[in-house]
């Protein structure tokens, strides 16, 4: 890995290495559950990316003649009540789930960081912002998401927004806690003594040192977003009924659970594998980057 250090043009990998530190990378590589999580996530991501290639059949193409086919060589994962190929639907569903998860994570990264930094650094805003987040966190998370989604009308975008609203306060809280911690360190005082302004201190000193807990938190948000999206879609409040969403697939399979159990089991497995992968990844990151912070849920 030493050749990376002398390359003049810092690649994404070198900047990641610089962010994590070579020692941490080594520890991550040696962390067994992190690596399992990483491979699971890469596996799901690959399926999502290559969905159009690996699924030869249109996920929405109905074939009345081949309804309720159990997994076989012809239909790898079987077919559903309308004769749609489950393998294609699961693969395309991965796209949808990951897209929604990514959307929630991005919104969390932007607004969670913004609110958390404001609350942690400007103590005058802290009271208002944290009481607001307390109010939001007082609702059971899925119930809150259902409420927002129901009010806005079902769509994938609605799902992203309502889940973001649910998880942003949690991210903001974690960030606020680390901002408070870093703000106490002497290099912040050194910058202040040099005449640095608040914005400079936040951008140069505080936020870069809050990244580790943030990355850990976002990996968990990713997992919970995928899980919750499935719940919303299952209840008809997420993706459009025609979209190949894992939640909708489970919901549809529910009526045929005796005749065609694979209709529910297969999308269920897809959710389980993805969430497991992300959680293992997050646990590994937490062990290596941020052993003190525990998730609050």
């Amino acid at each position: 890995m030493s050749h990376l250090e002398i390359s003049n043009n810092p690649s994404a990998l070198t900047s990641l290495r610089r962010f994590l530190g070579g020692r941490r990378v080594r520890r991550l590589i040696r962390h067994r559950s992190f690596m399992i999580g990483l491979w699971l996530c890469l596996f799901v991501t690959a399926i999502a990316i290559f969905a159009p290639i690996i699924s030869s059949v249109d996920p929405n193409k109905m074939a009345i003649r081949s309804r309720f086919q159990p997994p076989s060589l012809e239909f790898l994962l079987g077919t559903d009540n309308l004769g749609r190929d489950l393998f294609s639907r699961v693969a395309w569903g991965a796209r949808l789930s990951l897209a929604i998860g990514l959307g929630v994570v991005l919104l969390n990264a932007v607004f969670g960081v913004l609110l958390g930094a404001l609350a942690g650094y400007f103590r005058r805003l802290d009271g208002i912002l944290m009481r607001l987040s307390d109010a939001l966190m007082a609702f059971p998370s899925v119930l809150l998401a259902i409420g927002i989604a129901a009010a806005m009308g079902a769509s994938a975008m609605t799902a992203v927004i309502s889940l973001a609203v649910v998880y942003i306060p949690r991210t903001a809280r974690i960030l606020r806690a680390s901002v408070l911690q870093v703000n106490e360190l002497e290099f912040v005082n050194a910058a202040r003594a040099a005449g640095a302004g608040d914005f400079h201190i936040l951008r140069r000193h505080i936020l870069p040192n809050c990244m580790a807990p943030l990355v850990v938190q976002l990996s968990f948000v990713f997992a919970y977003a995928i899980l919750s999206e499935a719940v919303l879609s299952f209840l008809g409040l997420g993706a459009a009924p025609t979209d190949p969403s894992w939640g909708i697939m489970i919901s549809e399979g529910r009526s045929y659970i005796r005749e065609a159990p694979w209709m529910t089991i297969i999308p269920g497995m897809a959710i389980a594998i993805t969430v497991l992968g992300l959680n293992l990844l997050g646990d590994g990151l937490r062990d290596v980057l941020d052993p003190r912070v525990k998730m609050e849920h």
Partner: protein
Amino acid sequence: MSKAPLLSVRDLSKYFTIRSPFRGTTVGTVQAVNRVSFDIGEGETLGLVGESGCGKSTTGRLLLRLIEPDRGEVLFEGRDLLKLDAGELKAIRKSIQIVFQDPFSSLNPRMTVEDIITEPLYVQGGMTRHDMRDRARMLLERVGLNAAHITRYPHEFSGGQRQRIGIARALAADPRFIVCDEAVSALDVSVQAQVINLLQDLQEEFNLSYLFIAHDLSVVRHISDRVAVMYLGEVVEIAGKDALYASPRHPYTKALLEAIPVAHPRLRGKRARLGGEVSSALNPPPGCRFSQRCPFAQDVCRREAPALRELGERHQVACHFAEELQAVAA
């Protein structure tokens, strides 16, 4: 010294209110720093000693307005730092810098040595990146590190080397006055001496004034011109170092000096020990704050707080019985 001092502190005070976590009512006031006054001349080092919780570190931070004082004046080159607006304060920060105790938390682990050292220049503006880098290299060499290490990160250095980086940062904007807040306390003995020598060389070269805050009395004696002793937020004695160490006038200073371990096993022997513990600065008693531990305390000590008064040339003491104690000792 007829010239006006570079820095002149008058009645500097900082009180923290403690609130009950449940009811929000005020439990009391910690007089962390109470009516502290001292002068520091150009090129002079004032040592500030005292035990933990005596307010010596807070005093250093009040001077830099890292903590906002409640009362008092800090005159730097004749201007009151506490009356400056944000713009003026930023400009004057060039001249007043600080070196911290902890070589680990005082350097941002995500910044290169170059970025750390040039930060004061960057913040103050008016220099090209190229000039800043040249200055950083020069400073790094000056504090005894390899200029080529400018692209490294703090974790690649040892504690003593990190402290040198912190010193280079403090020097970057060409200050006149540096607060050394326990700057050598966290270092191993064999490294500590190097950093003390470095600080003295730099002082001579750049005509710097230091406020040298420390709890190690032998280090303070070595580096300071004059020494101030603090107890529970108040200065109890200020004097030239030789006068202070040779003939302390305040009973607390005396006790502090007697508590220092001997330099050679042959000098062992029973010495008078100060009993009790440093009491809390929360709601301090009326009268002398040292009266609870003072072996010579009288009724008047518990009633009236002694003021810091001149006793001999540039020797100030805050004790009702300084003269009597002097006579007894002689």
